């Protein structure tokens, strides 16, 4: 559909074995990409028996999510090649069980798309996502329904992401009803109350029969989190969960995420544009630029010792609440290019303060810096 490289990795509905290998970008962090899966469609039984073997919950390999640009009917007939918004362009990464992995980048860099594709709210146009070694793109509709009990999402805006016409009880109980996990009303009530108290709204019974507009922004976000944890998921994709909250209440929501990671063992994919927030709670950070991960590694390591020029610039411009800490700002000129026409070679080279001629031609691969730390820049080799 979108090009040759994709044809080779496209899921085949037949029964032959699917081997995942690294593409041009080989991000072997932190474990070797094993992940062989025999068989065609993934059935619910496969999902029920699957387990995490090497501590890695998700293996993302060469993930591509391209959105075709809408052209008029006539133009699309004439045009020789279709244009795509390359939201995610060959991304590979691992998400370890029980960690908070932060994906950081500016708007339009594809960070949200990765999260949504993990849940199959968006279809990948190429590459693989392995959940407990099972390829998500091969899930049948029934498997998908089972899978959605295991992976949840929290959205940015707690004002929009819950139905104003439902009570808190209905909102949190909805996943239980849809999944058909509980049979009686009493069991449902128990689990809802448990999830709401775990999300920090105590006593939970005080909140059950209230409407969202009676709650503050922070409380609403807690309701969203309760709605996500009520099914005991393995994974929660948190898409800018605090971006629309007042600063003074942000930290509690972040704290709640860390708490739940520790007590419930939930893995979080924390998507944010704010590197300093990622720095506060995440275990690892992946920095994205224009559909590609440019640097990934242990949070402290990446922030204190950034290797990629983009990461360096990004860290240098984070404002800090200290007027005397006047640091050298590396301000990139211009704006992020359109993800339709991605620059050749290293996609960052037109704005890179350290670019050399070779950057224009050579597409960088990951360079191992040490430990979990990788950066995609040819000047590091």
């Amino acid at each position: 559909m979108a090009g040759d490289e994709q044809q080779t990795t496209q899921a085949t509905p037949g029964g032959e074995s699917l081997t995942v290998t690294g593409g041009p970008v080989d991000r072997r962090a932190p474990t070797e990409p094993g992940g062989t899966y025999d068989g065609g469609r993934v059935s619910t039984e496969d999902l029920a028996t699957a387990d995490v073997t090497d501590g890695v919950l998700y293996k993302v390999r060469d993930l591509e999510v391209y959105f075709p640009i809408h052209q008029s009917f006539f133009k699309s007939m004439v045009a020789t090649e279709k244009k795509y918004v390359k939201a995610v362009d060959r991304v590979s990464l691992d998400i370890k069980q029980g960690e908070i992995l932060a994906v950081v980048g500016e708007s339009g860099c594809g960070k949200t798309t990765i999260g949504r594709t993990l849940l199959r709210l968006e279809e990948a146009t190429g590459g693989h996502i392995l959940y407990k070694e099972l390829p998500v793109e091969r899930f049948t509709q029934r498997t998908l329904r089972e899978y959605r009990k295991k992976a949840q999402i929290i959205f940015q805006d707690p004002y929009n992401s819950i139905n104003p016409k439902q009570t808190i009880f209905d909102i949190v109980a909805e996943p239980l009803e849809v999944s058909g996990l509980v049979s009686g009303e009493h069991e449902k009530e128990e689990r809802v109350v448990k999830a709401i108290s775990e999300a920090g709204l105590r006593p939970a019974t005080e909140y059950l029969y209230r409407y969202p507009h009676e709650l503050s922004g922070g409380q609403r976000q807690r309701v969203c989190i309760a709605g996500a944890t009520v099914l005991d998921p393995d994974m929660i994709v948190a898409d800018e969960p605090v971006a629309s909250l007042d600063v003074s209440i942000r930290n509690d929501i972040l704290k709640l995420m860390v708490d739940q990671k520790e007590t419930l063992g939930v893995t979080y994919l924390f998507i944010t544009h704010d590197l300093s927030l990622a720095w506060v709670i995440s275990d690892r950070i992946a920095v994205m630029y224009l559909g590609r991960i440019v640097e990934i590694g242990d949070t402290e390591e990446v922030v204190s010792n950034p290797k990629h020029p983009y990461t360096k610039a990004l860290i240098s411009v984070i404002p800090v609440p200290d007027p005397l800490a006047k640091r050298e700002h590396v301000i990139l000129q211009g704006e992020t290019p359109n993800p339709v026409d991605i620059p050749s070679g290293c996609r960052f080279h037109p704005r890179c303060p350290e670019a050399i001629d070779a950057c224009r031609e050579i597409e960088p691969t990951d360079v191992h810096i040490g430990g979990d730390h990788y950066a995609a820049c040819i000047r590091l080799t």
Partner: protein
Amino acid sequence: MSATATSAAAKTTERIEHEGLLEVRDLCTYFKLSQGWVHAVEDVSFSVSRGESLGLAGESGCGKTTAALSVLKLLPENGRIVSGEILFDGRNLTKRTEYGMSKIRWKEISMIFQGAMNALNPVQETGKQIAEPIMLHEGVSESKALDRARELFELVGINPKRVMEYPHQLSGGMRQRAMIAMALACNPKLIIGDEPTTALDVMVQAQILELIQRLRTELDLSFILISHDLSVMAETCDKGVIMYAGKIVESGSAEHLFRNPQHPYTRQLIKSFPNIHEKREMVSSIQGDPPNLLEPPPGCRFAPRCDERVADCAAVDPARIEVEPGHFVSCHLFKEAT
């Protein structure tokens, strides 16, 4: 006729001695709702000198924007300046008529609004919108004004050829730059930036802040930055004012505020912003919600959420105390300090 009469009346009150370029004294601005009066801004005082930049910070709904709009008397119909004085360059703005204000607006005080997409008229060319105040206040022809608009585009780093484009044809960052160009149109003495970088990407935010800093030094402008983001304020402002629920809790130089914060609210708020140059730690949020300004709590408005409150807090309004030269705090904890 009435216009000349009122401007003559305004003249008699003019030329007042006051410190700095703009001085706001004990400003109270209320809004009328069906349920009563909202005390949005109460007893707010601050001043800006020539070439100085002042930050006005606080959480949403703390009245910082209302305070700024009061300066230009651009309040919505249900808003009213109840008491206090706004002195600008030797003139008392509170006493000015609408006509008198229109002479000051943009010519001497201009504004950069948040969200340039909404603040620019979508059906008029960007350049024409910049030229409009120039034509109005300087009485020049449209072509001259457009030439000036082109120069301004150059100054803020947009290709002057794009001057006749509509706002929707510019990117988010460029719209904000155009908004800055518009604010500079009449060479004002004071620019008020209302969250000029909120909703922009980090890198674009850095670009815009750098641009503002550069223009400030080049053109010797006074600048008031309204922001909820204390770290942005720390990086751009010489001095700052922290507001909570319509009142000033603490004010002083940026160094005072961030290196030696005194008010419990300021301290907690600053801590809420992560500082990647320091040790990584999780701090707690400030518990509770801001008070309802229809019936503000008696005493210190922060008292219900304050960890360090003493007996007086809930009953007595704290006085403004100078803890060190130029550093003021309104908090009962400092009663003895004076």
